């Protein structure tokens, strides 16, 4: 009897033990499930870190890698570096633009260039310098004329593979302009005289204190004609037009985009959007834009303030004599 009781008790104990184990296993398995959830969360956290890092890396490198189209703005009167500084940021320094063009063409990921032009022109050498740099490029170049792309700026545009302008953009103005401030009358009024010692008959020609005589005028005109011929020749060659045809339409006249299209001076109506589409067509690649412009450092900000204030003072005096002409001092032709 006692034995039976003990066996019953032991059987109960065994049952309890199994139950306990079963419950423990259940708890364990439920714990394991909880642990898996933690694992899943950790994996998600790490993947999120990777995603965030990739996002920032993508942003940081987006300007450095990938096929690009370099956008080079040519905005303002074009001058050589010597003449550029007094006008601060309003003037296009040809040397800087040539450097930017070279920098862009040397970058392996730059597959095309868009010249974003908004300029009334500039000095002959500066314009020609940029046009030559554009012509030497081996990658496609598209010029997009915004408000104005006239004279020297058009010379540059003509050197590119394709010109896009708005129907209302001002372009053309193929001609040369030479002038100088002459205030001999003013000096007479104030009883001021000017004496300059020169060796060489025409060394003093074009100084602002004396009027040109007929011979000097003739010499100057010849030089302007020579530049004009050079300009016409360049446009004719660049645009596949005959010299005579360019001579007919040039004459220093400016044209609206619609007229320029008729004369073959531009290829398409449009703006930057059309420019990008064109370079993508020419290269057969999807391109991201990268703007190439002068990196203005900390000190150049001070330089700019100084330059602009000087220009402000200078313009105040200059404007009383002449309006709308950048050219001051000795005669230097502008296109």
């Amino acid at each position, binding site marked *: 009897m006692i034995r039976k009781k003990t066996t019953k008790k032991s059987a109960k104990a065994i049952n309890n033990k199994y139950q306990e184990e079963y419950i423990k296993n259940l708890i364990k398995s439920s714990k394991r499930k909880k642990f898996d959830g933690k694992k899943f969360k950790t994996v998600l956290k*790490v993947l999120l870190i990777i*995603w965030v890092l*990739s996002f920032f890396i993508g942003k940081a490198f987006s300007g450095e*890698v*990938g096929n690009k189209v370099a956008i080079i703005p040519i905005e303002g009167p074009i001058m050589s570096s010597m003449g550029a500084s007094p006008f601060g940021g309003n003037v296009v320094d040809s040397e800087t633009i040539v450097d930017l063009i070279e920098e862009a063409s040397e970058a392996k*990921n730059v597959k095309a260039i868009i010249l974003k032009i908004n300029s009334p022109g500039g000095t002959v050498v500066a314009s020609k310098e940029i046009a030559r740099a554009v012509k030497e490029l081996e990658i496609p170049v598209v010029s997009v004329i915004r408000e104005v792309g006239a004279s020297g700026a058009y010379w540059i545009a003509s050197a590119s593979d394709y010109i896009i302008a708005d129907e209302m953009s001002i372009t053309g103005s193929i001609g040369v302009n030479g002038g100088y401030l002459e205030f001999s009358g003013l000096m007479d009024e104030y009883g001021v005289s000017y004496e300059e010692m020169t060796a060489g008959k025409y060394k003093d020609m074009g100084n602002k204190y004396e009027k040109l005589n007929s011979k000097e005028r003739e010499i100057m005109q010849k030089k302007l004609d020579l530049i004009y011929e050079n300009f016409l020749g360049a446009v004719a060659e660049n645009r596949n037009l005959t010299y005579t045809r360019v001579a007919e339409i040039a004459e220093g006249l400016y044209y609206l985009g619609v007229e320029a299209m008729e004369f073959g001076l531009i290829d398409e109506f449009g703006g930057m959007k059309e420019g990008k589409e064109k370079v993508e067509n020419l290269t057969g690649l999807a391109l991201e834009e990268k703007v190439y412009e002068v990196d203005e450092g900390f000190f150049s900000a001070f330089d700019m303030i100084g330059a602009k204030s000087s220009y402000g003072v200078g313009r105040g005096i200059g404007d009383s004599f002449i309006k709308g002409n950048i050219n001051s001092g000795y005669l230097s032709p502008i296109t």
Partner: protein
Amino acid sequence: MNKKVSSRKKASKASNIADVMGASYIKRIMAYFIDMLVVSLVMYFPMKGLFSGMIGDEETFSSLFAASNEMSFSIFLLDFVLALVFILYFALLEFKLSQTVGKMMMGLEVKSVIGELTFRQCFMRNISKMSVMFLFIDSIYGLFKGTRRRFLEKYSSTVVVNK
């Protein structure tokens, strides 16, 4: 004295684990490909712009890698940074869970031969994942030694075992 005893214990334990053969290379290669797939998927969307700019309409990824030989310093730097991110994925998951997604799926885990697994060990053992070539050279060591442990695993005192 106690310290000496504990260090001996540690050393004996360490040698026991060190004697354990690493898990099979085939399993590990499969785990590596799964991890590659996971990381590539995660990195693809934030980097999409970069790659689409890099690859032309008619080009393929293989031509991109072929072209990368002649690419500039920026590309090299980008490669390096991306490799670091890739290593970070392995190092972080192995440090936190002793497993990556690939290792979880293949039933593998990383163990330290000397005590607890540290982040330094995890990072160290994954450096060769910077390039497939480095990883290949690193893995050859284990094949020659017959221990199925890469050189960097030995150097970082870690081992990959079946769970």
